């Protein structure tokens, strides 16, 4: 187990190193200059040059890459070109929105998907299964920004149960924080739940065909008991993979939803940073997201082992 983790860790570090190179040089070719963006159309060339010097943009690309990477190793992500504050601080502020939002959406989607998937699998081919599967088809097909718009119209503008957007902050208490993340979380969670429910169902159906399910029935377990005691846990492996993928997607993919609900999250930060050519912010956020995805995959692999004892002794 330890050996396995070590090996994964090594490939994680390697991936990050390659990722940092790719990110830096891809992003650096983007046309547009942060300094001229900051100074607008009336700026004089010498002013722009002065700002470029101040921002360190006059150094060579390689020097800046080296600075960036060595900085990151010390936990210093550099200073934003536009905000002029440390990138690390900005990211951690935004993470306090994005991370809870992703987790919230993930919990919602799991809470919806598990019962739905299990229900459908248990009633394979019957009316209940059809209904759930039909709903998941629709869930996958509805664009989430469109769905978000509808939620706002109904729950914020007409019913006034929620704010139309914005984030109340955690300092006002857990409840008000969660309350302001509820509509965004729902709009993110629903399509994910649809996918997850389908995976859960098909994984369970696979398991239902396994010999040990028949053994369980032969012991005297009812269909339902067998499903819960032996089916669900075995079905968790493919489901975990999808949950892992979804978490990374939710962390990075909330850009549009953050826009619709004007949440100060990572997605909006990176979106703004791209348009302002605040490259160092873009680079650092992308790096962080890549890191998050790789780490989540790593954790999912470890979680497999928790679920599946066969993997614990894996070399």
């Amino acid at each position, binding site marked *: 187990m330890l050996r396995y983790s070590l090996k994964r860790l090594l490939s994680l570090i390697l991936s990050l190193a390659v990722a940092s190179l790719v990110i830096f040089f891809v992003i650096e070719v983007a046309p547009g200059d942060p300094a001229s963006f900051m*100074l607008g159309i009336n*700026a004089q060339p010498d002013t722009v040059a002065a700002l470029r010097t101040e921002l360190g943009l006059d150094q060579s690309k390689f020097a800046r890459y080296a600075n960036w990477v060595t900085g990151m190793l010390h936990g210093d992500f550099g200073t934003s070109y536009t905000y002029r504050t440390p990138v690390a601080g900005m990211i951690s502020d935004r993470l306090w929105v994005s991370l809870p939002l992703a987790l919230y959406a993930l919990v919602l989607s799991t809470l919806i998907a598990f019962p739905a998937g299990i229900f459908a699998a248990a009633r394979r081919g019957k009316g209940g299964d059809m209904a759930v599967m039909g709903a998941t088809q629709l869930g996958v097909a509805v664009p989430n920004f469109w769905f978000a718009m509808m939620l706002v119209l109904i729950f914020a503008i007409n019913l006034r149960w929620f704010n*139309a957007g914005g984030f109340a902050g955690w300092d006002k208490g857990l409840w008000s924080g969660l309350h302001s993340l509820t509509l965004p979380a729902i709009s993110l969670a629903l399509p994910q739940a649809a996918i997850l429910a389908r995976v859960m169902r098909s994984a369970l159906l696979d398991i239902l065909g396994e010999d040990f399910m028949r053994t369980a029935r032969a012991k005297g377990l009812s269909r339902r008991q067998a499903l819960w005691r032996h089916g669900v846990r075995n079905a968790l492996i493919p489901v975990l993979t999808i949950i892992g993928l979804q978490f990374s997607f939710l962390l990075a993919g909330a850009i549009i939803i953050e826009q619709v609900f004007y949440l100060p999250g990572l997605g909006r930060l990176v979106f*703004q940073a791209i*348009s302002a050519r605040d490259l160092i912010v873009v680079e650092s956020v992308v790096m962080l997201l890549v890191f998050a995805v790789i780490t989540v995959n790593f954790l999912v692999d470890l979680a497999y082992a928790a679920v599946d004892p066969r993997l614990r002794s894996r070399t």
Partner: protein
Amino acid sequence: KDSIIVAMQLEPPHLDPTSAAAGAIDSVLYSNVFEGLTRFMGDGAVVPGLAESWEISNDGLTYTFTLHGGVAFHDGTTLDGEDVKFSLDRARAEDSTNAQKALFAGITDITVVDPQTVKVTLAEPNGNFLFNLAWGDAVIVAPESIDDIKTNPVGTGAFKFTNWVQGDRIDLTRNADYWGTPAVLNTATFKFISDPTAAFASVMAEDVDAFISFPAPENIPQFEADPRFQVLVGSTEGETILSTNNKQPPFDDVRVRQALAHAIDRQAIVDGAMFGYGTPIGSHFAPHNPAYLDLTANSAFDPEKSKALLAEAGMGDGFTTTLHLPPPSYARRGGEIIAAQLAEVGIKAEIINVEWAQWLETVFRGKDFGLTIISHTEPMDIGIYARPEYYFQYDNKGFQELMTDLNATTDPAKRIELMQQAQTIISDDYVNGYLFQLAQLSVAKAGVQGLWSNAPTQATDLTAVSWAE
């Protein structure tokens, strides 16, 4: 109620109005937190700010400012002549990063006569000087707090900066020790909502008390019909124009530019892109300015004439060009309409949507474009036509001399005459397609009073805002 939540589209990148072009910085801080020697009023007038009064020497080269007494920065330090000298020297210094450094170009010397008196010497007379000093880029900052100014702005205004949650909001509180008329509100919060749908939702759900410069004109009638809200329709300094690359063939031919002008139906653009809000203009000048001349007839919508002109210029079969559109909806929507209208006379304009950074790089600095749509929001900026290297590359010696004369003229009547001449010249030269003056549309809850309806500069002056009983 003594607090307000004001929403706007763009968030300031940082909080130093003297080292970035972003209008959002002024929108939050101008007059609320930072003040200059002079200042704009809601109607565009320039009035004394931190300078109580001033004297101008007869040759127009020396300005002697007398500062208000008892003015303190929010950190408790007092404002004196040294602060003024520091601020202006910083703006015009070699390594200055002031986005409008040109405003200070004429200054040759600044002397502090005594703590309340500052003398500024110019190289040549400048009729716009007091106006220039009213800009947000010319506000007075203190050397003590300059290092942190980007995150912790310390000014002399009626509000103090308290908190900034990046990506979300900025909080201000009343400055109890304000030297002038204190603010009515105790606290003010600026929220940043860039998405137009979200903007609509936030107002409808009453999450915010006011939305300054509401981005979706199509929603204005709904607010007007709703007794919970009031709509403020004003004007801005933004001349929205179809900028034309005067050096790029075939636009170097005035007949082609004229054809362009006659191909455009301004009213359709105002109706289609702005849902009726905006005043058609015929030259690069704001209609609310006393010197404004209505020259729209000069480029009336006349597709037949347009085609005839094109034929005359040897472009009877039409031609293809590019139309770069920056993000604001006036440009994106207006661009779609213009492209359709140009197609009617045989000009195929390929739409290229760009971000600001790209626009600055390719269009503004690279001058690699045929057409673009943009609103020039700087007040009184007809002077850009005197800069041949400016991105639309209009080079007319006569016009340049006219501008030099204008700068040197201080007599108001004479100035008006010169400005009208200028408007006529560029209108007759069809330098750009003149579309409309951008309207300032703001929505507020019914009880809010004292908001500016116009935008003579990008500012949200809250010092006089209060709630009706």
